[in-house]
């Protein structure tokens, strides 16, 4: 090819398409990046929080706060609860110790592990000890949330989510009452 | 290909000849057929089209359009149908609800009916007792936008009703079930100098149009409220209303 220097327009395919090729080299990764970012950011924002299991008796660090250990106990004197015959009143007890930042957390949810059925905390009767959740807490909080569950339900985990960190959700595994 | 000597490709010449011949034959056949149709009975559509006086066609269409327009009243504005006058106790039947305003009461406060006035803000409550029947085929919420838009005070047209309650058992924001009559107390928070005992209240009744959702909307909904009737009620001022049975459901 070098010999035929006189043939001006007869350049190689690569050099003739040099501009297009450079554009392609820029645009293809840019397109993949833009579409990928768009789709994956939607996925990460919209997905369910990751469930992080925590072994019984252990604590977990979440957004600077220390959560746990957790316990699930049967409420010995369920007088204040209007519980139907055959139901149990359980209480989920979780210690939340804030780090540098104040911490907010949802009311824990009782999750039946084999089925995924979920119970929300009941309103506590007068004289109930402990909190149902935490709000802008700067000092350690002892959560003590009561639940009405059918007598044959279980085993359970205690699910807790922090207000400012929707990405992760703790499944605090507990000794069954 | 064109630069190739003809001799090297003996196939090319005969094949070209064949195509030329067949093309010619085709054209001849077409011409024959054309002559046939011009003379014979076929091709009626083409002949009919030729007979249409295209020169006059545009004029004819325009004339037809103008005639039709004139038949419907030309470009005159449609005579606006004014709202119907409704006497106290008389019903105006709209497409959604039938409303019969009974009387109007001015009261200092009407918490039971869903309208709590702030005396420091110089507010009082104007209550209209109205007999209502839902004439649609599904429930209408008493506090829904569309229901509250059906009743407006003529002097304060932008002011939405604050409270809607049943007169018999005091249910606030009751659902109006189809065909079930109900007496309602509809209340507005009004400036305390806006109305007085003995004033004539002009109460406007609006009719909505039922729309069916398309593409991005779904279901049926009421919209486009238009003034349909005006009721005249004499206002009774019951003061604080402690002994006023009229305003306490």
């Amino acid at each position, binding site marked *: 090819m070098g010999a035929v220097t006189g043939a001006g327009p007869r350049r190689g395919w690569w050099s003739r398409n040099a501009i297009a090729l450079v554009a392609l080299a820029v645009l293809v990764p840019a397109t993949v990046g833009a579409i990928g970012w768009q789709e994956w950011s939607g996925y990460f924002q919209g997905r369910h929080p990751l469930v992080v299991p925590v072994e019984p008796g252990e604590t977990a660090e979440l957004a600077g706060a220390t959560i746990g250990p957790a316990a699930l106990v049967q409420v010995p004197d369920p007088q204040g609860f*209007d*519980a*139907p*015959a055959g*139901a149990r009143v359980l209480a989920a007890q979780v210690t939340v110790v804030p780090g540098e930042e104040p911490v907010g957390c949802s009311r824990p949810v009782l999750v039946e592990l084999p089925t*995924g*059925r*979920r*119970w*929300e905390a009941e309103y506590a009767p007068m004289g109930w000890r402990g909190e149902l959740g935490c709000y802008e807490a700067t000092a350690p909080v002892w959560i003590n949330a009561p639940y*009405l*569950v*059918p007598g044959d*339900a279980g085993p359970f985990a205690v699910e807790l989510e922090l207000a400012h960190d929707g990405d992760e959700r703790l499944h605090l595994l507990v000794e069954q009452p | 290909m064109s630069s190739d000597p003809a001799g090297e490709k003996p196939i090319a010449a005969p094949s070209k000849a064949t195509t030329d011949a067949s093309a010619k034959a085709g054209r001849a056949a077409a011409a024959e057929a054309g002559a046939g149709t011009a003379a014979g009975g076929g091709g009626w559509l083409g002949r009919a089209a030729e007979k249409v006086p295209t020169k006059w066609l545009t004029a004819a269409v325009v004339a037809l359009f103008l005639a039709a327009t004139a038949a419907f009243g030309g470009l005159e504005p449609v005579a606006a149908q004014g709202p119907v006058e409704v006497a106290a106790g008389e019903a105006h039947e709209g497409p959604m609800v039938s409303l019969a305003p009974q009387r109007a009461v001015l009261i200092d406060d009407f918490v039971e009916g869903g309208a709590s006035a702030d005396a420091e803000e110089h507010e009082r409550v104007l209550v209209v007792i109205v007999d209502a029947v839902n004439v649609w*085929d*599904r*429930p209408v919420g008493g506090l829904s936008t569309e229901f509250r838009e059906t009743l407006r005070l003529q002097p304060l047209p932008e002011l939405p009703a604050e409270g809607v309650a*049943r007169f*018999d*058992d005091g*249910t606030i924001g*009751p*659902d109006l*079930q*189809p*065909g*079930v009559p109900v007496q309602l107390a509809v209340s507005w928070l009004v400036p305390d100098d806006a109305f007085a005992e003995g004033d004539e209240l002009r109460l406007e009744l609006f009719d909505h149009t039922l729309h069916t959702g398309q593409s991005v909307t779904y279901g049926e909904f009421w919209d486009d409220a238009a003034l349909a009737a005006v009721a005249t009620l004499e206002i009774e001022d019951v003061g604080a209303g402690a002994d006023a049975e009229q305003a306490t459901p």
Partner: protein
Amino acid sequence: MKRALAWLAGLAMVAAAAAVGHLTLTEGQQQSPFVVQAALGDPAVGRTFAVTVEQVRAADAVADAGGWHAAGNWVVVDLEAQARESETASILTLIELRVGEVVYGASERPVSLVDTPLSVGLPQSGSIAFELPESLTSGAATLRLGRTAEDRLDSVAELQIDLAALERRPSIELRETAWAQ
């Protein structure tokens, strides 16, 4: 011959298009709810809830345990209901009686099972009351119960009712919503 074939093919295509147009489900059919047919006394299990309609009666007046009462043409449904998966937003917000094309909503006037959050696995017992026009005492009605007022593509429990065949009482007191026994 060729011409006849072309006509035949054309007609066949038109017929095929018409058939496709007729056989394709409308948007309403594609999005229709999953109906669970209920029967008196039998649990009807939907995706997120389960109900057992125990009795349906008519009355000329109803009262609730709190002392509220009202005359009228009432249909009273006694039932048990529970949530199946979650207690979040577990109120039955679709409670309606359909008579032909007309839809009656559950009355919010008495205290009833309307607006009661359902519990997972723990059935509650209560009543629902419908206020109907005075003249509506016969005809076929459908009781429809669902978790959301928007019933498309979710379970709806339906019970067929013959209004004329209902036991009619002068007055019925609604059940107080309580745990089912």
